[in-house]
């Protein structure tokens, strides 16, 4: 085996001219190994293997389809994640062409038989761009057996299209025709102390920085384990500063992959590196800096007294300019441990306190306040709202990553046809909006069974003996008003709910959320895949995923209630004609989305006598199924009360206050994209066909137009 096959090149045969074939990481590791450095034995699976997989399996067409659903520059980060998930699933589900498969298996078996390996990305051209893109692509540790290695090679290939890579597609020059991924397969060194050395301090250029942890390097790289940190004089290696960490955890090899474990006390009390170890790491950085003629960022590990180089690359700057939110998006990807902490904070602290605050405010007698006190109250509430909002961004939004983490885990284990099958397993956990809908369904069922009640409802006038029914209706109207920004318990609200109930009662059987039976079977099949410790991990991840999924829905509702109470105080001040500070003149709770009403029609009409009509719009398939009916555009809360059974709900983004009409809907079309937006979650909950990310929906569709919603392919056909 050698360069001849070009599918695989062992480290010892890699030459500089192979750069486009083996990628930057493989090239530098091979150069290190050939120069006598201690580098774990390895080989590169070339970009040719990637290309053959792509073209021979037909997956290139699939990627093209996913990338062309809508322009990437118009996608929200969530949509990029969805796109990337679908591509990743396609990579997992598509078998490697037999000839390529045979060559890879043969090479891997020959080199590593019986030994665990690391499977790492080595994208060509990445290092040449002069920017740091660490973490865009995947790497896997402790992979055993040839078929598993092959599967992980596919996963690394797929990571060429990770959400992070899509974010940085311009800098990476990501292109289906030109981009490719090489993979390093390397013997795994079970190091007991590991770290990173920066051959030049990012700010103080006369310094070198060393970071080290007990155990494997992964804990440091992904941020789960805090490192001890030394700053050394770059010229002499003398110690300038030392910051020990609270050494609690370390990452170790498990049967398959790695796991985070508590560090035994004896080791926790000492630094991972002795003075002599530190000197050797410093010397290594200096040596590599000279060899590659540029300060290096080196990952290393000690296995007992042997120091291995895991990676070395030139230090690059990570500065992508101001206003660049991409680093923030990527920071949303959280580890399991971090998500557990977030969950505890949100469930035990954030939500109960938000709920309590909104309740307290609701009971305040604003009418009794003097003008000055009222204005102070408006300002205080507004400030509090801003505080809740920032906590929402800091805690709730990153927590949504729990769904993603579980989704990836599920797809890797189950390799389902539908990459969103995992959502079935997460739903049904008692979403606030579903609970509320069920209450409405119960009222409708009572009216359906009782003609007198039905007729009273139609007239909108209670009769004697129906008190409990009307009280419950009022409670519902009031709860809804609290979210939708209506006057509490208004006559209008009550009438509208009564009219809605009449429509629901006329339906022979209203849609209920999906039966739990299938979910149990799905859960059983999922958990049956795991034994022992892995099973526990799967159960914990499922639990976390469920909590993340539920909160994704509920947190909106709680924040909405806070916003509503700010508006109540603001409205009272307005009523008295008091001067409101700038920023408070607008309502915080649901606003009409009328700003989007300008039609494309007028643009073209002004120039020539053409009228633009959409025939078919594409978005993302967010709830499987086919549905059809007349469109009902929802631009403000009042539009909801006209909603007729079987209509297709078309809106900018489904707001929690809208969900009560969902069981009546024949389909849902949302301008905002993503599989995990509120609308998509609720649609799946009720099994309603849903397409999200149809950016022009409100511009191109009119209420009353007949629509067909294809929730399998993400297509809306008009007329």
């Amino acid at each position: 085996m050698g360069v001849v096959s070009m599918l695989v090149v062992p480290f010892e045969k890699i030459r500089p001219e192979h750069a486009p074939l083996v990628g930057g990481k493989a090239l530098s590791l091979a150069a290190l190994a050939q120069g006598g450095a201690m580098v774990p034995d390895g080989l590169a699976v070339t970009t040719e293997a990637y290309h053959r997989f792509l073209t021979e399996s037909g997956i290139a067409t699939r990627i093209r389809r996913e990338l062309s659903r809508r322009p990437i520059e118009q996608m929200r980060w969530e949509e990029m994640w969805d796109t990337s998930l679908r591509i990743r699933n396609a990579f997992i589900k598509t078998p490697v062409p037999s000839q390529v498969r045979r060559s890879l298996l043969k090479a891997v078996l020959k080199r590593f038989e019986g030994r665990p390996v690391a499977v790492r990305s080595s994208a060509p051209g990445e290092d040449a761009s002069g920017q740091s893109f660490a973490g865009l692509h995947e790497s896997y540790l402790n992979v055993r057996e040839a078929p598993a290695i092959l599967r992980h090679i596919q996963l690394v290939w797929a990571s060429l299209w990770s959400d992070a890579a899509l974010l940085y597609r311009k800098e990476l020059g990501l292109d289906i025709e030109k981009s490719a991924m090489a993979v390093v397969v390397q013997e795994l060194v079970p190091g007991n102390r590991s770290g990173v050395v920066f051959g030049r301090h990012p700010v103080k250029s006369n310094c070198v920085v060393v970071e080290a942890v007990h155990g494997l390097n992964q804990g440091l790289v992904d941020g789960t384990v805090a490192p001890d940190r030394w700053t050394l004089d770059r010229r002499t290696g003398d110690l300038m500063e030392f910051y020990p960490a609270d050494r609690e955890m370390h990452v170790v090899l498990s049967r398959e992959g790695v796991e985070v474990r508590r560090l035994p006390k004896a080791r926790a009390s000492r630094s991972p590196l002795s003075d002599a170890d530190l000197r050797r790491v410093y010397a290594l950085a200096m040596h590599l800096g000279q060899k590659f003629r540029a300060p290096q960022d080196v990952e290393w590990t000690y296995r007992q007294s042997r120091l291995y180089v895991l990676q070395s690359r030139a230090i690059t700057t990570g500065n992508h300019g101001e206003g660049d939110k991409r680093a923030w998006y990527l920071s949303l990807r959280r580890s399991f441990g971090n998500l557990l902490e977030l969950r505890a904070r949100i469930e035990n602290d954030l939500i109960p306190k938000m709920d309590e605050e909104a309740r307290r405010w609701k009971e305040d007698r604003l009418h009794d306040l003097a003008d000055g006190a009222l204005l102070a109250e408006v300002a205080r509430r507004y400030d509090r709202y801003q505080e809740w909002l920032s906590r929402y961004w800091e805690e709730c939004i990153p927590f949504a990553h729990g769904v993603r983490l579980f989704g990836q885990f599920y797809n890797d284990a189950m390799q389902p046809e539908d990459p969103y099958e995992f959502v079935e397993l997460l739903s049904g956990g008692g979403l606030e909006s579903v609970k509320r809908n069920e209450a409405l369904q119960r009222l409708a069922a009572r009216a359906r069974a009782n003609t007198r009640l039905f007729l009273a409802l139609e007239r909108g006038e209670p009769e004697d003996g129906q008190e409990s029914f009307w009280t419950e209706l009022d409670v519902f109207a009031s709860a809804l008003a609290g979210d939708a920004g209506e006057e509490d318990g208004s006559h209008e609200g009550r009438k509208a709910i009564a009219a809605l109930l009449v429509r629901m009662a006329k339906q022979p059987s209203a849609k209920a959320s999906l039966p739990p039976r299938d979910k149990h079977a799905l859960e059983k099949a999922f958990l049956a895949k795991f034994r022992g410790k892995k099973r526990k991990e799967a159960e914990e991840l499922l639990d976390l995923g469920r909590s993340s999924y539920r909160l994704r829905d509920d947190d909106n509702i709680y924040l909405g209630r806070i916003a509503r109470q700010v508006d109540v105080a603001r409205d009272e001040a307005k009523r008295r004609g008091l001067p409101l500070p700038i920023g408070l003149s607008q309502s915080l709770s649901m606003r009409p989305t009328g700003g989007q009403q300008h039609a494309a029609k007028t643009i073209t009409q002004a120039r020539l006598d053409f009228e633009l009509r959409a025939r078919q719009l594409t978005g993302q398939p967010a709830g499987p199924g086919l549905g059809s009916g007349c469109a009902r555009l929802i631009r403000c809360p009042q539009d909801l009360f006209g909603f007729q059974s079987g209509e297709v709900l078309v809106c900018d983004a489904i707001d929690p206050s809208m969900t009560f009409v969902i069981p009546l809907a024949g389909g849902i079309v949302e301008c905002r994209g993503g599989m995990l937006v509120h609308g998509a979650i609720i649609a799946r909950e009720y099994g309603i066909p849903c397409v999200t990310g149809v950016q022009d929906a409100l511009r191109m569709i009119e209420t009353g137009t007949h629509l067909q919603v294809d929730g399998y392919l993400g297509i809306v056909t008009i007329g």
Partner: protein
Amino acid sequence: MRKNAARSADPADPLNVVRQLLSSQQVAVLATHNQGQPYGTLVGFSISPDLKFIFFATSRSTRKFANIMADDRTAMTFDDRTHAAADFYDAVGVTACGRSTEVSKSRRSADLRRFLAKHPHLHEFVMSPNCAFLRLRVEKYVMVRRFQDVVELWVS
């Protein structure tokens, strides 16, 4: 003329995409029918500045001419395929639907000039006695992008 001009046109301005595509292409597929049997042929074409008419020429003895004489409802399809797999998602396709009629000799000078400016090699063909010069009066354009995005532009 750039082959893929339509792809770089502002996607928010569909009319401009149509203009770019029709300006960049030499031939299109003309669809007619004979008693319900559809029939497609390649024809050279030109457009009017306001995009409301498309001009093409054919011999009076062709099947397509006979079809048009029997039923003037016609369609013409334009695209910027490059015959690569990427076409499925990257190519822009536009179909013009409307009615075709022969342009009388007395009224065709400016339109014919434009047609021959685009297809100078067809001069002899167009000028031959048995050749008919026709125009398709566009009722609507149907444009497909990104494989499934479909919009219609109706002449009002």
